[in-house]
Every structure is written in C-alpha cells, then in structure tokens.
C-alpha cells in the first residue's frame, strides 16, 4: 500500500470533527475492510457488523491514533482484532488453534473440517477461486489473518507485522506455515 497524502488530509479533517471527511474515509475503506472481514469470517452479516464496528471504534479512539502511523495500518489493526475476537468466540476451531503454537508441525490442522462452508452462490465464483477460498477458510485463525493480509490485501510483511503487532520474523513463519498448509490442500486438486 502506498502512503496516501489524500488519506492524511482526510484523517486530519475527520479528527477535527469534519463529518464529510469522515464519510469519505468510510467510503474509501469500507470495501477493503468488508473484504478482509468476509474472508476472515465467511459470513456476510458478520462482515457488515465488523465494518460498522471498525468505523465506530475509529471515531471513538481518534485520541489514540498516532499521526506518525499510517491510517491504513491503524484501521486494519482495529478490523483484524475485531475479526480475531469473533473467531475466538466460535469455540471448536479456535480451541484447536490455541492448542498449537508456531513450533508445532502442521499435521494436526488437517483435522479441521475445512469444507463446512456457506454457499457463495451470490458471487458466482470460478471453481479455482472457490477452491482457494475454501482452503483459506480452513486455515487456523492466526495463519488466516496473515494470509489474507498478504494475498488479499497485498500487504508487505513489514506492514502485516505493524497491523498484527508482531515481529516480522513471526509474520514470516506464519506466511510459511500458511503457504505450506495451502500447498497441501490445493496440490491434489490442481494436479
């Protein structure tokens, strides 16, 4: 993501209480946040809730925003944390995820039923796309957020580290694990 001076200006105005500027920020970021939340949660209504909640938190927490930080990093952090909280509340998957740490192998993850999913008929996705979304959906939460930020939002490893508040080395480990997981899931279907 490019540093956006337009963003900086809008943020300054919005922080001072300019509603028009705030509405423009909502307009600029709503689809990105929705996309992120939809992929994290696989549920349209929950994704809409996340978008609303994210902007309300932005509004309420302007005093905590550090202008030296990119606005996009801050808003993605809020949104990602909200999604992770929701995933945590969905017991079974998270339980399995919580039992594992980065030092563990991936084999346990094959136990997760990755194919229980909501139909996406409304989007008329190609088979390949569906296959990938299913594979991503089956990822444990901590790999899911990293993979979604990396590939769906095309963020750098550095930026992902800032958003998730973790060292780049951890982000890398998770990208590697996530990529291996996806390779194993996708490979039999692609060959």
């Amino acid at each position, binding site marked *: 993501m490019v540093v956006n001076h337009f963003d900086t200006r809008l943020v300054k105005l919005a922080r001072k209480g300019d509603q028009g500027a705030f509405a423009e920020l909502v307009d600029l970021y709503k689809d990105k946040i929705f996309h992120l939340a939809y992929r994290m949660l696989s549920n349209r209504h929950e994704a809409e809730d996340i978008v609303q909640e994210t902007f309300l938190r932005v509004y309420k927490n302007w005093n905590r925003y550090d202008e030296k930080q990119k606005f996009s990093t801050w808003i993605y952090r809020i949104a990602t944390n909200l999604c992770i909280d929701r995933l945590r509340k969905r017991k079974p998957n998270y339980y399995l995820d919580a039992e594992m740490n980065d030092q563990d192998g991936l084999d346990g993850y094959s136990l997760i039923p990755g194919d229980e999913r909501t139909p996406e008929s409304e989007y008329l996705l190609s088979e390949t*796309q569906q296959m990938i979304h299913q594979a991503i959906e089956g990822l444990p939460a901590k790999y899911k957020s990293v993979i979604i930020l990396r590939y769906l939002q095309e963020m750098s490893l550095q930026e992902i580290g800032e958003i998730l508040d973790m060292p780049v080395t951890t982000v890398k480990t998770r990208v590697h694990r996530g990529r291996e997981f*996806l390779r194993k899931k*996708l490979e039999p279907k692609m060959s």
Partner: protein
Amino acid sequence: MDCKQASSLMHEYFDDDLTHEQVVELKHHLQGCSVCSARFQELEQTEMVLFSTIRHKALSAPDELVDAIMSKIPNQRRQQAWVG
C-alpha cells in the same frame, strides 16, 4: 544443502528475501533433487493462484453501510459551534 534447508529457502525465495548467491544454491539443490523440485513447483503454483485469482474478486460492502455508520456518529461540528 539438505532438503530441510532447501524447504526453508524456498519460502524465503517467495518472500523475496534471498540473496543472489542463495538463489543459485537453491537452484543447484533443486536440479539434483526431484522431491524438492516438485515441492517447489507446488509452492510456486500455490503462490501464483493466490496472487492472481484472489485479487480479482474484490467484494463491496453495501452502500447503506455508509449511512448506517454516519447515523451513529454524533455531529461534533454542530456541538462545537454550539459550545464555542
């Protein structure tokens, strides 16, 4: 280089983190090891599909959401004007 090291280098290759020398070493290993070579191809394919197909389908949030959000934001400007 053993296969374990090669596997870790493969990932760093996809992260664009390898020096030229490391890339040469990795290539050298891949040429002599069919298992790693197959694994590399699978990873490359995974990486490609992830980047290419996913970004095409950007989802949009419903437009009503903007109104819904704005209706929950207090009109601070008016308040400020009233106070000041």
